[in-house]
């Protein structure tokens, strides 16, 4: 599969197809009129509505059904090169005008400390809309069906002897996002997200092991409909996941040493997120997160020269790929989604940017300026960060590897504030012996230094193993914003990786 050719989305760039709501037309007109011709160089208004429904169950019984509706608007103003932003959930003409004036007042206050004015990279005004492609609207699936699926899955897992608890959940969200800017853009997006997962814990009190499916930390989520849940087949996988949790309980600790390691796609997804995505957020590179999320070891002067990874590693940011938590038509600057290279054959060639940060390196925005809803200002965020597939089938890669470790499903992680180093724990490791998966180990941990680690990558599985893994809780910014991203990954091999058991070191047999 050529990802670019098969997944690029066509935007409907026609005024006739763009259906902004009547309320938003009014809101946008009032808001933009309130700040226009008052020294303002640029302004935009966003109105977002989130409809969310979550269902959770444990041990065969429903835990709860929760639903949420969240509507509000935010107005962003660039006044003499300084930003202001204000937002409110209250839709009244007086409140819209108050918020618009507040945004302008805030921008004027920002101007008092301005040293060099903010410049925005160019983009053409856009009138367009975008809708997530899906087969089954998750909100149309009867609640009893969703409840029954979760109760069945958790019951099948929980009834195995030795299982402490089994829990599962399904989340459905619809984000309706409308955008209007002073320079003429009018955009409406309807993004539907759906996902879920199963988590099974074996053991008692302080001696427990957990196995998750299809991924940990709440499961796997992406853009699309209820077909995502059906494809997961949580009931059909429940017993296997429970058995694996029980096997982990009696499995030996992961051996320590330098190993050849194959990272499964879900763990590699988080590795990409933390050690490629975050360091390449351009606002972070410039110090916007110096007080909170941190900075980056990467810098613009390394473009074209930094050997970030081995020459088989190429990474792109691509919100046009359907099915990801970072799949969208436009970012919150109104820039059309596009595929942008970040690492080409191991060399750093791009950053994740918005209009403001892109202008500082003389580039166009990569369409990565995103806000976590109406109440937040857009900042540089990941969309779908994709490690392009290689050529190996997993069976061939295991056979070629001979001996080593296969690590799957993240359990915990920690990264330094410059993203120079990392420590990841997984739920399970499997010995690779004789070219096949063998003994299961518990509590595996691997550590490394970012650039050194990525230069140890010598094989990537092919596109038949490709999947976008969702991260529904990426935190950044002050006030803190939690946003959805995805990482595209296939299993990949890394040589000479430091591995140990989180419960303490035990002697390993190398293989590195």
């Amino acid at each position: 599969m050529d990802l670019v050719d098969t997944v690029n989305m066509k935007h409907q760039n026609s005024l006739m197809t763009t259906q902004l709501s009547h309320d938003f037309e009014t809101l946008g007109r009032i808001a933009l009129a309130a700040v226009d011709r008052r020294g303002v160089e640029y302004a935009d208004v966003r109105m977002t509505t989130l409809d969310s429904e979550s269902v959770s169950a444990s041990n065969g019984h429903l835990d709860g059904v929760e639903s949420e509706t969240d509507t509000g608007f935010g107005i962003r103003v660039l006044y003499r090169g300084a930003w202001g932003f204000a937002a409110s959930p209250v839709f009244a003409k007086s409140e819209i005008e108050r918020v618009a004036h507040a945004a302008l007042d805030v921008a004027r206050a920002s101007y008092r400390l301005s040293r060099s004015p903010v410049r925005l990279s160019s983009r053409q005004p856009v009138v367009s809309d975008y809708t997530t492609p899906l087969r089954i609207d998750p909100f149309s699936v009867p609640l009893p069906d969703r409840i029954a699926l979760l109760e069945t899955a958790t019951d099948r897992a929980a009834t195995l002897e030795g299982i402490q608890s089994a829990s599962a959940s399904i989340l459905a969200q619809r984000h309706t996002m409308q955008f209007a800017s002073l320079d003429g853009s009018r955009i409406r997006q309807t993004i539907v997200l759906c996902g879920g997962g199963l988590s099974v814990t074996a053991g008692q009190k302080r001696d427990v092991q957990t196995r998750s499916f299809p991924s940990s930390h709440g499961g796997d989520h992406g853009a699309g409909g209820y077909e995502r849940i059906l494809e997961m087949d949580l009931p059909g996988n429940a017993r296997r996941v429970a058995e694996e949790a029980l096997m982990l309980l009696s499995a030996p600790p992961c051996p320590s040493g330098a190993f050849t390691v194959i990272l499964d796609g879900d763990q590699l997804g988080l590795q990409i997120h933390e050690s490629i995505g975050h360091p390449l957020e351009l606002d972070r590179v410039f110090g916007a997160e110096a007080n909170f999320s941190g900075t980056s070891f990467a810098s613009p002067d390394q473009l074209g020269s930094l050997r970030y990874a081995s020459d088989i590693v190429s990474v792109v940011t691509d919100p046009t790929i359907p099915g990801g938590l970072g799949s969208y038509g436009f970012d919150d600057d109104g820039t059309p989604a596009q595929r942008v290279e970040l690492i080409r054959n191991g060399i750093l060639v791009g950053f994740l940017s918005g209009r403001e940060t892109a202008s500082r390196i003389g580039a166009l925005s990569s369409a990565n300026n995103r806000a976590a809803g109406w109440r937040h200002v857009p900042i540089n965020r990941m969309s779908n960060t994709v490690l392009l597939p290689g050529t190996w089938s997993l069976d061939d890669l295991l056979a070629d590897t001979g001996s080593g470790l296969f690590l799957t499903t993240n359990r915990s992680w920690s990264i330094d504030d410059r993203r120079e180093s990392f420590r990841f724990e997984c739920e399970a490791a499997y010995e690779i012996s004789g070219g096949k998966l063998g003994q299961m180990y518990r509590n595996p941990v691997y550590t490394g230094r970012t650039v050194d680690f990525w230069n140890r990558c010598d094989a990537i599985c092919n596109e038949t193993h490709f999947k976008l893994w969702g991260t529904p809780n990426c935190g950044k910014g002050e006030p803190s914003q939690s946003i959805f991203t995805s990482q595209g990954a296939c299993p990949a091999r890394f040589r000479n990786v430091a591995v140990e058991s989180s419960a303490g070191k035990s002697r390993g047999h190398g293989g590195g």
Partner: protein
Amino acid sequence: MNAEAGTIDRKALEAILNLAPPACELAVAVVDESSRTTRLAESVIQANVSVRDLTVWLELRRDTRSTLVTLHSLEPEPVKAAIGQALRILDTLGDGDPLIPLESAKPVPRIDMFDRKTDAWSPKQAAKALREAVRIADIGRLSVAGALTLTSTARGIAHTGGMMLTASRTEVDLSLTCADPSGASGWDRAYGHRIGDIDIAAVAKRAASRAIRSRDPVELEPGPYTVVLEPGAVGPMLLFLSFLSFGGSPFNRGTSFMAGHIGEKVLPDFMTIRDDPLDPRMGGWPFDFEGTPCAPVTLVENGVARAVVHDRTTAEISTGHALAPGNGFGPYPKCMVMSPGETSTDAWIAGIDQGLLITRFWYINYVNPMKTMITGTTRDGTFRIQNGKVTGAVRNMRFVESILEAFRRATAVSSEREYFRMFGSTMRIPSMVIPAFTFTEVAS
């Protein structure tokens, strides 16, 4: 139009309760928050935001069924739609276990937590005040990043069983990081419920001083070191310990180190930890999200385990620690105060031959929650102690430690304490001296 920010309109709550369908109980929780954040980066205002936020949780209950619907409006039509949605969900559900009865109305303590001056503080005033931080950074040839956030919050709890409570508070949170082009950085922060509690210049000076002292760091071999943890490092450890052990859920599950050991010695004699939501500077509330009055709880007294905190799902008698509906986390203390020692941090440093002074920990995550084992890195101020003096900067290092074991090894806490805010919790904490603290790698 909704209630004005800073207060909850009781009539609006009554109007919602009047919409309860027949044979149903309805519980309402409302948080109306107005926040102004001025964010610095590269010594200029990088973002400046003013946000009014309103969250309304509706719990609809009938017989043994209940459901939670969240919305962000007090307008009649959205509220009616939300109650309709809740009713449709209730009709779908099967019968469950008997519901815990709604809390009965009880007198709640009065706390003066709302400061009008803070509520009225403008972005212009914030910019003017932060100019002093920029000036201090400029003197040291440093850039400054950070955020000053002023928040006015009103909370209302009501239910059809006769509950009607409202309260308001203000709070101010400031953190600053100074840095030079080499990457040397220093951090400091302050928290209070009034703008008058915050000395921006003092915070900037401490951050700048740490940044200057962080220049030219040396790389040390990983291994065990005696550490002096400043409040920015003690705070995250205490907070993670509270997640794991000081709440009713882990206590009842038996995973808390306190479980089965109430009345027993669990920490050093000099450690007393209380939760004090009634201290206005701790950012607490007079009542929790179930409407139970809040009260101080002594968690550990002179090293002896005394109690954990509860809501009405974890104990028959709640201590007033219910979090927002639907949190899925269970109660934990959010206003922890650790008693001070008798000797200053500087005096403890003077007594250390070889060690490290740690300003702040970063990116803490669990290694083995059952053993309170965590990992993280140092950041924005890691210094070497030699022969009783702080002699220079050290490259950041990763640690892997059991919080409980580290606290048990602690030999002292300082006489000075600071307010520390993290993940919505406030702590008032001293510095702590811990021998043989384990560092595993150089991080950055």
